[in-house]
């Protein structure tokens, strides 16, 4: 503990002894994205209010997952609060590894959490993680380039339109790619994107008996479409582009369109970082003509308390603070409304201050358009839009997305990749005892 923290703790202690509660030191594992870093900067507000101090373990997303999963599965108890996603929460909740959050205080107003988020972070109706921010995905496009191409973006475009527009906007000489999309291997990167693309072409991961579906024509159509479009209008080397890489490209004015997380909207419209901040329009994610599912996902970074922690009460206090309406106000005060953590609470979207933010409505519409319990046209035995909420999925989808990335890099054909994906998925499902 540093001297400064010790000092805080000491002052906090004197404050709190009056009210009878015990000041705790919470260890919180979190991911190194912008909103979480911002929260770390505001932690003093929490300490002032409750007397508890906080120590952050900030890790890059992949390292964080590996770290918290090991710790919770082995019951290591290294962390009092873990930052986890919509994928982990229902699985861990079902295992009894997380503390139920159904008993949060009345002023916290859990009913205010967007229903889609709440459903995605619950198991059997019990909330196991509180959303810090939520996201879907949508199209971000350059209004100036769209105009130059003589086209107009519909509210809800189809893939066919997107492909045509991308080709029209592409200008290789001035280094402008019509469309930038994720191709990077990893289930949460390119794996997530190709899964929702599959959904919007009528494909699915598994049939009702957990048989892999990569041998079906819908997958071939989706993957072929994706590869052809990126060939025509995508950036070079898109096989290694994930969220960050595409964000950089878009901010530098090198993309006509980008379909990705709704949280990116605040980054691309921030004039400090983005060279195209005033020329960005938004639209709902596309679907293939005649398919009643859009290529948008549903995700939340959420805070959960591992079962067995000694500091459950203090941990819940922190969660109430970090995911409260007050915290949103606090960020708005310090950083402006465009930078508040989005996508978690209904009341945020009813707030006139936030409604003035250009991407607020499209974000909400995108979130509402995603249905984790009904992600594909054909019936599926799983929950989750861009993932399948079973423990084996992360491993399988990472390997599948690696096969797909090899296609994007021109190292194998669509058919080869699909055949390998089919084999390895069935193999892993067999190993796990599904088939």
């Amino acid at each position, binding site marked *: 503990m540093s001297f400064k923290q010790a000092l805080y703790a000491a002052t906090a202690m004197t404050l709190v002894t009056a009210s009878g509660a015990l000041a705790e030191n919470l260890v919180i594992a979190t991911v190194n994205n912008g909103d979480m870093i911002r929260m770390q900067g505001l932690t003093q507000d929490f300490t002032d209010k409750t007397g508890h101090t906080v120590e952050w373990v900030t890790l890059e997303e992949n390292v964080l997952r590996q770290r918290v999963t090991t710790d919770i599965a082995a019951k290591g108890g290294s962390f009092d609060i873990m930052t986890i996603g919509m994928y982990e929460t229902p699985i861990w909740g079902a295992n009894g590894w997380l503390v139920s959050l159904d008993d949060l205080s009345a002023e916290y107003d859990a009913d205010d959490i967007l229903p889609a988020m709440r459903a995605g972070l619950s198991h059997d109706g019990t909330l196991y993680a509180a959303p810090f921010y939520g996201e879907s995905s949508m199209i971000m496009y350059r209004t100036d380039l769209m105009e130059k191409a003589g086209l107009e973006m519909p509210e809800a475009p189809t893939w066919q339109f997107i492909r045509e527009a991308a080709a029209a906007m592409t200008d290789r000489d001035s280094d402008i790619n019509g469309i930038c999309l994720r191709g990077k*291997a990893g289930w949460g990167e390119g794996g997530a994107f190709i899964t929702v693309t599959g959904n919007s072409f009528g494909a699915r991961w598994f049939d009702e008996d957990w048989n892999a579906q990569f041998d079906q024509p819908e997958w071939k159509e989706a993957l072929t479409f994706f590869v052809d479009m990126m060939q025509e209008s995508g950036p070079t080397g898109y*096989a290694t582009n994930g969220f960050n890489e595409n964000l950089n490209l878009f901010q530098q004015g090198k993309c006509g369109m980008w379909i990705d997380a709704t949280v990116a909207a605040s980054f691309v419209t921030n004039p400090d970082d983005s060279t195209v901040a005033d020329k960005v329009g938004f639209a709902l994610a596309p679907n293939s003509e005649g398919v009643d599912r859009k290529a948008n996902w549903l995700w939340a970074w959420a805070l959960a308390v591992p079962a067995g922690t000694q500091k459950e009460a203090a941990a819940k206090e922190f969660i109430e603070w970090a995911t409260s309406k007050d915290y949103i106000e606090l960020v708005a005060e310090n950083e402006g409304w465009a930078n508040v953590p989005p996508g978690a609470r209904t009341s945020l979207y009813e707030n006139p201050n936030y409604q003035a933010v250009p991407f607020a409505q499209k974000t909400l519409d995108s979130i509402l358009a995603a249905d984790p319990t009904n992600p594909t046209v054909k019936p599926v035995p799983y929950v989750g839009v861009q993932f399948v909420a079973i423990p084996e999925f992360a491993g399988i989808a990472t390997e599948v997305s*690696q096969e797909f*990335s*090899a296609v994007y890099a021109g190292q194998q054909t669509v058919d080869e990749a699909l055949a390998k994906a089919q084999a*390895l998925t069935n193999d892993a499902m067999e190993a796990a005892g599904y088939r």
Partner: protein
Amino acid sequence: MATKHSRSAARLMMAPAVILLLGWMLVPLIMTLIFSFKQYLPLRGGDLGWVGFDNYVRFVSSSAFWPSVVATLTIVGGVLLITVIIGVLLAILLNQPMWGQGVVRILVIAPFFVMPTVSALVWKNMFMDPVNGLFAHLWRFFGAEPIAWLSEASLPSIVLIVSWQWLPFATLILLTAIQSLDGEQLEAAEMDGAPPLKRFGYITLPHLSRAITIVVLIQTIFLLAIFAEIFVTTGGAFGTRTLTYLIFQRVLESQNVGLGSAGGVYAIILANIVAIFLMRIVGKNLDA
């Protein structure tokens, strides 16, 4: 002559190191062996009972297995080849009279101090990034299309990064060896009119064989285990999944400890095959 007294004392003195290492080897090894015969899935309740050789069969029958062995050997072999060849050339160069030899030596050994994670991050972002990387700038400057290094040339890229980290090690050992080379012998050969290549082949190279052995042996041990460089750059995509990385995927990404443990046993077998192979070829050189 060692006395009986000193022999027993010697055993006593060796005991702590041997016992500790024995423990460090046996405890994990036995646990790995036990897990490898079990269905052990931490996310599904942990130990689900014995499954015989299922994990072993499944691990090798996976389509990822043989490519991972090939990738491992390619990376190890590639790095060894590059570091030894460039290391020898560099050692010869650094052994020549010049100004500022000490400073040059500092420059050359610097990469050895860099954490693997940091070096992978720096190479990936600041050099190999196809848009903002320095290589991309360079390529564009010469009017060429930038290369997406980590997808189009994934294995060579990783070999490059790892070679950069290990070149100082090889160079320094070889340099020390060259410095001890008998100058008169070389001069005599020169007088006799032996061309430089011949002098190198008949005098320098044999002299270096022992140093090369050390380089190959030590590097192989470390190279078989490289992980951070792959985790940070490609995440195992584009044919860079080594055996170590495949085990990581099985244990941590798929959370299948039994399957990963079986992989661990295979990795030990592979490491020992490589070790025996090395000993056979170069082991003689190791005798002091």
